[in-house]
């Protein structure tokens, strides 16, 4: 069959969602942020809530998220996205509010805001992209950097004596009364992307139904920061990141899930 016969509008299976702008993404080649953006916006589109969704962009690599997501967006000061989202959801309860944050934003400078927003059970969705490093500023150590992992500020590898232990934010917020769905996913393979998207969709639905805070972590790669090729970084992530940050549902419908496995 000729390509001309296949490439027709009626045969279309997949194209970039209309909820993403035509702007070229500012991320490095192979960065998981792009896929995370895409599935978030696809979930919003599929739920038909594009007009009433407001996103809060963080500071970090995804600081320009408002340029790429074709929904109403608000920029927050570093780490303060959950606080801004709290205000938005209280002033406009009919809207669906989400924050999109990296690990430097959510787990370092914004730890207090994150924990208190989750503890208050604000009806917001928090999407947390964890790549274990400060990507934008040049690969410095983050609270989520793995033990022994080298970064520009831990050139001999992270040690517990000097730098403390990696922070498992998702397990932490799952313990709080206010959170409803807490899960950890990744976006490096087709299967994982679908799972992550399903979780994000459920999170948006439950936030709309005012059931509490929805927390979705996406373990991602940072090939520039880790100094690897995109494909290598995904392999490294599977081997090392998933060992410390196991994928799966941690809290479902307000109840903690016992088995912390399921890849």
């Amino acid at each position, binding site marked *: *069959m000729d*390509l001309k*016969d*296949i*490439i*027709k509008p009626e*045969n*279309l*299976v*997949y*194209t*970039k*969602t209309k909820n*993403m702008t035509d702007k*070229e*993404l500012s*991320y*490095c*080649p*192979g*960065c*998981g*942020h*792009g*896929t995370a953006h*895409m599935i978030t916006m696809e979930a919003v589109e599929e739920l038909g809530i594009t007009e009433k969704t407001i996103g809060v962009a963080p500071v970090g690599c995804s600081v320009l998220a408002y340029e790429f997501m074709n929904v109403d967006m608000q920029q927050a000061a570093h780490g303060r996205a959950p606080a801004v989202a709290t205000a938005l959801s209280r002033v406009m309860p009919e809207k669906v509010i989400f924050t999109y944050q990296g690990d430097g934003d959510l787990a370092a400078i914004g730890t207090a805001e994150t924990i208190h927003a989750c503890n208050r059970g604000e009806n917001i969705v928090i999407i947390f992209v964890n790549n274990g490093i400060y990507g934008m500023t040049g690969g410095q150590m983050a609270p989520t950097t793995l033990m022994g992992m080298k970064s520009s500020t831990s050139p001999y590898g992270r040690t517990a004596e000097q730098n403390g232990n990696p922070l498992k934010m998702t397990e932490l917020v799952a313990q709080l009364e206010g959170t409803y769905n807490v899960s950890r996913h990744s*976006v*490096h*393979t*087709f299967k994982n*992307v*679908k799972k992550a998207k399903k979780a994000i969709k459920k999170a948006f639905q439950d936030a709309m139904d005012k059931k509490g805070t929805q927390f979705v972590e996406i373990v991602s790669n940072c*090939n520039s920061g880790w100094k690897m*090729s*995109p*494909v290598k970084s*995904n392999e490294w992530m599977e081997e090392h990141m998933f060992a410390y940050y196991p994928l799966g549902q941690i809290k479902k419908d307000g109840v903690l899930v016992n088995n912390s496995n399921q890849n």
Partner: protein
Amino acid sequence: MSKVIGAIVVDIDKCKGCELCVVACPTDVIDMTKEVNAKGYAYAYMINPEACTGCSHCATVCPDGVITVYRTKKATA
């Protein structure tokens, strides 16, 4: 042989050549070009178009959303 045939269209100017689609493709359809685009990245193309089933694995993992997937039934000849 599968009964469907697919094809992908790559937005060459926006492709950053990360090669994640090459790994994601279950039927080894995609490869990177020797030429580069305006930004200097090698971009994805179909080296083996007959094997494409239009499963959209490549487009789903593409961080930049540059792949559009089409699929249709094979013409019975």
